[in-house]
């Protein structure tokens, strides 16, 4: 068998996840050696048609053209993996979901009639079958290499589903919530970044999306009891993974609560 053919594709996104792959300098040569990179616009002008053994998809679906293009990529790819929060949960651009997109366009563009855009920014999995979702905003290069490696070796990838807190404790970081009263999404967010924000005295922003079986209601109830407002708590959830169901539902629940009170 020859080397597996790899394609990297981009939808609505900032390119940060593709850059993570390029940043993995020390490992990149080994990747280039192990796979045949046939399509990677961020890295090379060489773009060859499918089929691909592995397709890495960055970005969310935001236009009718996107929605068609992903179908072709799916047909061309044996194994399709999304990389990053945009492709996996719709990204920061999903903040517009549920709002008046037409009005946004009028506010931003001089000639909105040239813009063709869908009402919502949606994850790839709402359009085609996804074989593996790699979380993060941006993804962690070591996790990406790990997944590629697991595909080459024919084993399951190691991308743990536990909370960020476990990583804080393993690296000896003192909890910013308990010691400094800083709000932190770590207890409900999936591991992947090695708890980088708390190590810089900041709360977790939830870049890797909801951890497995997250208890959002308890975390926000505690924050409210400690004096935070429902608006603040809901706002903290409205980030890169705002459209991930667990975060979306909790932020909606809090928004509904605010409406009821008014």
């Amino acid at each position: 068998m020859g080397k597996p053919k790899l394609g990297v594709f981009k939808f609505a996104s900032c390119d940060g996840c593709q850059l993570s792959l390029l940043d993995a300098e020390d490992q990149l040569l080994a990747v280039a050696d192990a796979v045949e990179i046939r399509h990677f616009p961020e890295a090379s002008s060489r773009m060859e048609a499918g089929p691909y053994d592995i397709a890495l998809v960055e970005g969310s679906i935001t236009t009718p053209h996107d929605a068609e293009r992903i179908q072709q990529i799916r047909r061309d790819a044996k194994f399709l993996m999304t990389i990053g929060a945009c492709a996996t949960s719709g990204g920061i651009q999903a903040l517009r979901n549920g709002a008046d997109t037409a009005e946004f366009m009028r506010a931003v563009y001089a000639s909105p009639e040239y813009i063709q855009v869908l009402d919502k920014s949606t994850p790839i999995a709402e359009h085609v079958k996804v074989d593996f979702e790699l979380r993060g905003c941006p993804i962690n290069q070591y996790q990406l290499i790990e997944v590629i490696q697991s595909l080459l070796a024919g084993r399951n990838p190691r991308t743990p589903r536990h909370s960020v807190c476990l990583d804080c404790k393993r690296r000896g970081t003192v909890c910013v919530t308990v010691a400094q009263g800083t709000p932190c999404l770590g207890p409900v967010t999936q591991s992947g970044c090695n708890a980088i924000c708390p190590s810089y005295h900041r709360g977790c922003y939830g870049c890797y999306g909801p951890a497995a079986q997250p208890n959002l209601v308890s975390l926000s109830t505690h924050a409210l009891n400690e004096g935070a407002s429902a608006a603040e708590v809901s706002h903290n959830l409205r980030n890169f993974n705002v459209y991930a169901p667990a975060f979306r539902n909790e932020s909606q629940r809090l928004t509904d609560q605010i409406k009821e009170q008014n």
Partner: protein
Amino acid sequence: MSEESQTEIARSCFLSTEQFAKLFEVLHALDYEVIGPTIDQAAIVYDRLTSVDDLPRGWTDIQEPGKYRLEKRGDDALFGYVVGPHSWKQKLFPPVSTLSVADRTDAGWQFTEPEQELPKFAFLGVRACELAALKIQDRVFIGGPYVDPSYQGRRNKALIIAVNCTQAASTCFCTSMNTGPRCKAGYDLALTELADGFVVEVATPEGEIVINALETQIATDENQRQAEAARQQAVDQITKTLDTTDIRDLLMSNLEHPQWNDVAERCLSCTNCTMVCPTCFCSSVEEVSDLTGDHVERERKWDSCFNVDFSYMNGGLVRNSIRNRYRQWMTHKLATWIDQFGTSGCVGCGRCITWCPVGIDLTREVAAIRETQT
């Protein structure tokens, strides 16, 4: 040091604050790496110390469920705080370690052990509840037929300088667990801090070597009286209790108690309580290879029964809900630990209460079950 090497009656003496400062030089000259309390990240953590100035002089900690704050004291006490987010297990059972390494060569797989010169630690500031925790982890790692060589090597070399608590936090309940606040065994030296120095109890030959390198005085009756009063202050400040009467049977006969559902609504299954607990010892071992598959490292990492995938067995999760995971943790810690190791797994240090991001207090959960047991 291990409890066996401790002499029957500890000899005591008085060490002035000035002489105490020289302790660091003495320990360094004996090749010890001194680990003890210091301020970092808005908390008193355990880290490498170079001199007396690294200690949290004049600081204390205020603790309650889900909350920890540093505060200035009105004096220059060096050990005027309680216990923080770290415990000595970080040093004896490191959070991440490489157990072995394998390389593919023409002649086949070559296996090597990365260890290593084992570090020689002097732990400064070990509290009574922590001495009890060390004893529990000794039982787990070196007390049975399968000995953990890394833990054993570190533990045997370690010098334990205990400090008697002279105050307690609202989260402390060592008196309920019979583990403190008085340091009774398991140390080389034990200090009780007074305004102008320390009353030192010397319990082992290793402790003698260290104390003999310093200038000490005879501990006067007045010194002893002051030390006793200071220690009594900690006892008097302890307000939290855990009623341990028949606790094993209480929990094991209430496995379907509605309180488990109640706590599951609050628990985040975030793992913090197990990570900060000085007796929790779970880990996962995995093989990590490079891209070529020619170089493989076997890594051990702290893990937790609150991690959803920790109970994954061929085909599924055994504990697939927060309720099941919390119940597993508490029944192991307070009940089945007794069957397994002959003691409770809890020493009453209160860390799991303080460092739980939503302030869940195990003593209250047990009390709620006791009140309405079925």
